[in-house]
């Protein structure tokens, strides 16, 4: 009944791992062909793969795990999806109903453990509820501010002998759940007036624009007004990375021009972004002169950290659409003179300290710089790959130097910062887009957190390209230790204990390529991407001493207070 409901819901792939409490469900999977199951090697990877699938397609990712350890292993991935508002349904087996609460073998209170990190959860009490609960779960996961939903299913309720008349509901209605759709038209009018009257406007867009499929509208608005735009880490690709109005990412490792322009702006249009602490730096010093328009589908995101002057609760596509119409109809035009001098100022900032005008890292060094690896990947993939990443320095370098021109191409764990996310997420993306180039940018630390999935890649022929920026250290930890702990590298080094990644990749049946010389980099990368049907593990030995810059000064810094290199600061 459960699998039939998934089929009726249109689920293509289920990422999972079997176990005692889920065996009836697995048997049902075996006996049909519509819903395909991907066997991962660890339940955490199942959630990340479903997450990657969801991020790359906009559809709901589906996970199936067993009770107890299966369920607890899935927790990290559920929390990752929750923090980044990714639609996902996680079905967990549970011990038989009559054993619940008796500390039965492989029993854990999944609904309880996952409660703070799910949008909602269900415990099936009666087999006849299954179709309706499945329908509700997918509806809740996908609508409003998306998020993960857990369905916990006791084993006895999936017993094939237990049959009920089956009907899959076409629609569900929940009296207590009515996600916002259209924004308040009065507020939208106010926002447009404020925006048109701005002298130093900034458009700050986040993951909500990607999730809400509103990138084309954002682009149209930006170009109609000719206003500068910055994306958050989650929002990269919402406005094209090579677009002329793009100032780069903002925040802790954002560009000088984006952060400085935010600080000096007088009107900020925040779209589907949540004023995260990694963006605002010290909240009390955040953009002192700016009036803030905040569009978000989640009312709880508005005025949570930074108070909005014009709050608009609504779906970003609908609100941006209405704003566009109003801007086009309005007799008022942006103040051309003020805008020209604002652009002049921004271009000056760009010229002085921007990372895109000229390289800000040492290009003369003999060592391979991680930034140039990302630039080289961008060139060889023509900027058109799906790029997943793990967490750390390599993530920031990828965010800074791979210019994403399309939404849903940049797939990373922004909110939770989950190491181990990259490889399984790349598998999910590759399942969704079988012919696309999928790159996982990782480090030798992160990759080892889910490296077992190299085996899953073999089983399902998922030719992801793993680019490991190997600096033989937990780079971001090491950077902070350099900056704040007088270079005392507490447990951030491995003391020659790293595996030979080339041989490891080969052991799984893949291709391993090591790059140690700078002059070989481009050729080896070209070789890697030419192997279309193979998993390639590129172990690239990069300069250990490299830091990620710019970096906002903390604590007590404002947006514009940044370290620009090891020796320069604003």
């Amino acid at each position, binding site marked *: 009944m459960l699998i039939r409901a998934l089929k009726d819901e249109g689920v293509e792939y289920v990422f999972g791992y079997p176990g005692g409490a889920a065996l009836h469900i697995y048997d049902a999977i075996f006996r049909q062909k519509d819903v395909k199951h991907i066997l991962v090697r660890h339940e955490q990877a199942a959630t990340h793969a479903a997450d990657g699938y969801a991020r790359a397609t906009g559809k709901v990712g589906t996970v199936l795990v067993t009770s107890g350890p299966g369920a607890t292993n899935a927790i990290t991935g559920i929390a990752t999806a929750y923090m980044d508002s990714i639609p996902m349904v996680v079905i967990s087996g549970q011990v038989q109903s009559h054993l619940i609460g008796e500390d039965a073998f492989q029993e854990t209170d999944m609904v309880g453990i996952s*409660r703070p990190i799910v949008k909602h959860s269900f*415990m099936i009490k009666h087999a006849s509820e299954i179709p309706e609960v499945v329908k509700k779960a997918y509806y809740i996961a996908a609508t409003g501010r998306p998020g993960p939903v857990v369905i916990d299913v006791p084993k006895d309720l999936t017993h094939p002998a237990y049959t009920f008349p089956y009907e899959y509901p076409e629609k569900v209605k929940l009296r*207590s759940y009515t996600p916002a759709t259209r924004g308040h038209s009065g507020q939208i009018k106010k926002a447009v007036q404020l925006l048109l009257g701005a002298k130093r406007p900034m458009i700050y867009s986040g993951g909500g624009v990607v999730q809400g499929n509103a990138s084309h509208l954002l682009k149209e608005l930006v170009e109609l007004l000719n206003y500068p735009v910055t994306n958050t880490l989650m929002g990269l690709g919402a406005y094209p990375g090579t677009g002329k109005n793009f100032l780069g990412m903002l925040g802790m490792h954002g560009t000088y021009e984006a952060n400085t322009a935010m600080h000096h702006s007088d009107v900020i249009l925040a779209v589907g972004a949540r004023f995260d602490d990694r963006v605002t730096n010290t909240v009390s010093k955040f953009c002192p002169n700016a009036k803030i328009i905040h569009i978000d589908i989640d009312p709880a995101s508005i005025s949570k950290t930074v108070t909005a002057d014009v709050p608009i609760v609504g779906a970003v596509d609908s609100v941006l659409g209405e704003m566009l119409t109003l801007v086009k109809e309005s007799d008022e035009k942006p103040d051309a003179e003020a805008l020209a001098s604002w652009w002049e100022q921004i271009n000056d900032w760009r010229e002085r300290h921007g990372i895109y005008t000229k390289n800000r890292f040492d290009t003369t060094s003999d060592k391979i710089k991680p930034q140039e690896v990302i630039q080289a990947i961008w060139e060889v993939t023509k900027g058109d790959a799906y790029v997943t990443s793990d967490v750390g320095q390599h993530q920031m370098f990828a965010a800074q130097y791979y210019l994403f021109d399309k939404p849903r191409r940049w797939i990373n764990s922004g909110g939770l910062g989950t190491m181990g996310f990259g490889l399984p997420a790349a598998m999910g993306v590759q399942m969704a887009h079988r012919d696309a180039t999928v790159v996982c940018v990782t480090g030798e630390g992160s990759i080892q957190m889910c490296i077992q999935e190299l085996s899953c890649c073999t089983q399902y022929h998922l030719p992801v390209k793993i680019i490991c920026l190997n600096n033989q250290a937990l780079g971001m930890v090491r950077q902070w230790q350099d900056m704040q702990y007088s270079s005392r590298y507490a447990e951030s080094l491995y003391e020659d204990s790293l595996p030979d990644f080339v041989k490891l990749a080969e052991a799984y049946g893949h291709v391993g390529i090591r790059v140690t010389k700078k002059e070989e980099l481009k050729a080896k990368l070209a070789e890697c991407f030419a192997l279309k049907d193979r998993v390639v593990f590129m172990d690239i030995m990069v300069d250990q001493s490299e830091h990620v810059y710019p970096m906002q000064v903390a604590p007590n810094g404002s947006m514009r207070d940044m370290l620009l290199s090891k020796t320069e600061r604003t």
Partner: protein
Amino acid sequence: MRRIISVLVENAPGALSRVVGLFSQRGYNIESLTVAPTEDETLSRLTLTTLGDDHKIEQITKHLNKLIDVVKLVDLTEGSHIERELMLIKVKASGAQRAEVKRCVDIFRGQIVDVTSTLYTIQITGASDKLDAFLQAVGDASIIEVVRTGVCGISRGEKVLSL
């Protein structure tokens, strides 16, 4: 500032734990909590008192509203309202104290609901500060046991919290 928030939730398993969990997860404070089914058996009504400035209360109500099980809520302290709490209290009552305690109960319009040769069990209802005042009047030395229900409340006048 002290606030009384009344919440209608689905009378479903786990609904209460979601509400309580939200408070602990986000570092909000629950001073008191009462919950019981309503005349519509699919709904429970939950009344909680909490402390916080306007910003915090706004966040609390927004996050409560986000919970799928929460159907509707109102901050009673935003308008005029009636609040009540019930307290049962056992106090020492022997010798001269006996008459004194009885007088105190009368003044606070409480009732003595059970008696032994040395104890009175008293029932008293009212706003929380009235119950506090009664406890103070009786004095710590005489108090044996106290149980309070926590606040429940309702808006004055035409305003109602229902579907």
